[in-house]
C-alpha cells in the first residue's frame, strides 16, 4: 500500500506540474494583448505591460508565476484591476461545490437503486425501461438537459425559479441537470456488477442460511458492488466541474463555472489561467483520493498496478 501510494502521489504531482506549465504557456500564446480595448495609447499599454510583468522574458515570467503559485498567489485579474484571482475563487467555489456535492449524492442514490432494481427484477418492461433511460441519460448533453428543464419547469409551468441561488427551490433544477449523466453511468455500473455478484457462492450461502433478500443485497452484495461506483467518483468530479460551466451559465449561478465562461468572453487571461489551475488541482486531487481509497479497500487494485 505504501509503495502504491507513493507512485500515485508522484503521478499526481507530475500531472499538476504538466497542467500548470501547459496552461501558463498556452495563455501566453493567446493572440492579442489583454489590454487592447480600442483607444489605449501606446505609452499606457507599455506601462501596463510593465506593471503586470509582461515585458520580461517568458521563462522569467513563468518562474515568477510558479513561485507565486507556491504561496497560493494566482495573480491579479487583467480585466478588473485590483481584483485578485484568489478572491474570485474564494467567492465562487462554495456555490459550485454545493451543487456538485448535492448532484453526486443524488446520482449515487438514484443510480444505485435503479441499478439494483434493473439487475434483480424479472419484469422485462422494467429492465428495458431502465436500460432505455440510461441510454437517454448518457446520450443527452448536460446543457440540453439544463435548457429543457428550464424551458419546461421554469418558463412554461412556472413551477421553479430559473435564476440565482437564493432559496432551497433554486437548487432543484441545477442539481437535477447535473445529476442525470452520472446517475445513468452509476446505474449501468451497478447493474453490471450487481448481476455478476448475484450469482456468487456467498450470495447462495446467505440465501441458504435464511437471510432476507434485502439484507443480502445491502450487507453482502452492495459491499462488493460499490467499488466500481466509488472508482467512478473521480471521473464524475471532472464531469461535474465542466457541467458547472454549463449549468451555472444557464441558471445564472455565481459559481466557478460561470466565472470561467465570463473570463473566456472577456479574454481575461490571468483569470482563465488561475481558474484552470484551481479546477485542475481539485479534479486531480479528488481522482487521487478515490484511487487511493479503492486500493485500500480492494488489494487486487493495487496489485494490478506496477
Amino acid at each position, binding site marked *: 500500500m505504501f509503495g502504491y501510494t507513493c507512485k500515485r502521489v508522484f503521478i499526481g504531482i507530475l500531472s499538476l506540474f504538466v497542467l500548470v506549465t501547459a496552461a501558463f504557456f498556452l495563455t501566453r500564446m493567446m*493572440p492579442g494583448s489583454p489590454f487592447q480595448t480600442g483607444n489605449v495609447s501606446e505609452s499606457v499599454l507599455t506601462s501596463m505591460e510593465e506593471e503586470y510583468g509582461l515585458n520580461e522574458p517568458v521563462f522569467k515570467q513563468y518562474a515568477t508565476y510558479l513561485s507565486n503559485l507556491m504561496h497560493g498567489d494566482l495573480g491579479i485579474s487583467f480585466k478588473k484591476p485590483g481584483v485578485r484571482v484568489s478572491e474570485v475563487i474564494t467567492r465562487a467555489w462554495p456555490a459550485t461545490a454545493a451543487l456538485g456535492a448535492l448532484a453526486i449524492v443524488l446520482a449515487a442514490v438514484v443510480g444505485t437503486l435503479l441499478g439494483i432494481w434493473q439487475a434483480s427484477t424479472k419484469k422485462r418492461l422494467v429492465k428495458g425501461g431502465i436500460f432505455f433511460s440510461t441510454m437517454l441519460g448518457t446520450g443527452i448533453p448536460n446543457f440540453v438537459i439544463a*435548457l429543457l428543464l428550464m424551458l419546461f419547469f421554469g418558463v412554461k409551468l412556472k413551477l421553479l425559479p430559473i435564476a440565482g441561488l437564493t432559496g432551497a427551490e433554486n437548487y432543484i433544477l441545477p442539481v437535477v441537470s447535473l445529476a442525470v449523466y452520472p446517475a445513468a453511468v452509476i446505474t449501468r455500473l451497478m447493474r453490471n456488477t450487481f448481476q455478476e455478484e448475484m450469482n456468487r457462492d456467498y450470495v447462495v450461502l446467505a440465501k441458504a442460511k435464511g437471510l432476507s433478500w434485502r439484507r443480502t443485497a445491502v450487507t453482502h452484495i452492495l459491499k462488493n458492488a460499490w467499488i466500481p461506483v466509488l472508482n467512478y467518483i473521480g471521473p464524475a468530479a471532472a464531469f461535474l466541474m465542466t457541467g458547472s460551466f454549463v449549468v451555472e451559465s444557464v441558471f445564472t449561478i455565481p459559481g466557478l463555472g460561470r466565472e470561467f465562461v465570463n473570463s*473566456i468572453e472577456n479574454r481575461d487571461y490571468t483569470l482563465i489561467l488561475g481558474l484552470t489551475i484551481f479546477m485542475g488541482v481539485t*479534479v486531480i486531487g479528488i481522482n487521487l483520493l478515490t484511487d487511493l481509497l479503492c486500493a485500500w479497500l480492494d488489494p487486487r487494485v493495487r496489485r494490478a498496478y506496477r
Partner: protein
Amino acid sequence: MSKSKNTDKKIKGHLGKHRIRLSGVNRLFWAGLVLLTILMLLAVLVPAFSPYSHTKQSADIQNAVSTLSHPFGTDKFGRDIFVRVWYGTRISLTVGMGSALICGMIGILYGSIAGYWGGKTDLLMMRAADVIDAIPSLLYVILIMLVMGANVGSILFGICISGWIDLARIVRGEVQRLKMREFSMAARLAGAGAGRILWRHLLPNAAGPIIVNLTFMIPKAIFTEAFLSFVGVGISAPNASLGTLIQDARSQMQVYPFQMLYPILVLCILIFSMNLIGAGLEHYMRQMEEG
C-alpha cells in the same frame, strides 16, 4: 454483418430462448445504424441541394414560423434554420468521425508498442499516459481553442491530445494477452517481424474491443464540440455547429422555443444513434465471448 446473421441462425437452431435475446441486441444496432444513415444523408444532401445558404441573411423573414419552404422556420437574422441545422450536423459528424479516426490511429499504435515491447518501455509509456489522463481534458481544450482559433481543426487537435488514452490501454491489454498465445509464437518462429505479427495476427484478434471503443468515441467528441460551441469557444460565426445554434437560440428561448428545440432534437438523435450502435456491438461482443 454476414457473420452475425450466421451465428443468429446457428443459435436459432438449437437454443430457442437465446434467439430472442440476440435479435433484440441486433435490433439496437440496426436501429442506430438506420438513424445514423438517415442523419448522414440529410446532413450531406440538404445543404447541397437547398435553395438557401446557411449564412445568407434576409431582413424580411426574421423569426418566421415553420412553413413548407422553411421547414424549421428562420432565425433572428432571417437565416433558414433547416439548412443551418443540417450544416451543423455536418460539422458534428466531421468532428466525431475525424477524432475517432485520429485517436484510433494514435491509440492503436501507442498501445501496441507498449503492449508488445513490455518491460521498461511499457512502464514509461503507460505512466506518461496516466499523467496526461489525470488532467481534465476540457480545461486545456478550451485553452487550445483560445490559442488556435475557433475552427474544426483546433477542436480535433484538442480532443486528440487525450482522447487516445482509453483505447491505448485497451489495445495494450489485448496485445499483452494475445502475444503469448500459440498463433503469435508460431508467427514469430516462422520469422515474422514485430510489425507483421501485430498487424496480421494480434490486432485482428483484438478488433472487437477496439471497434466498440471507437464507436463510443464518436458521440463523446460530438458532445465535446457542442459543449465548446455552447461555452463560446467553438465554431465561430457565421458558420454554425449544433451547439452554436442552441446557444444562439437561447436568448430568444421564451419567445421562440422551437428555434432551440430543433437543433437540440437533431443533436440528441445523433448522439443517441451512435450510442445505440455502440451498445448493440458491445452486447454482441459479450455474447460472442460467452459463446
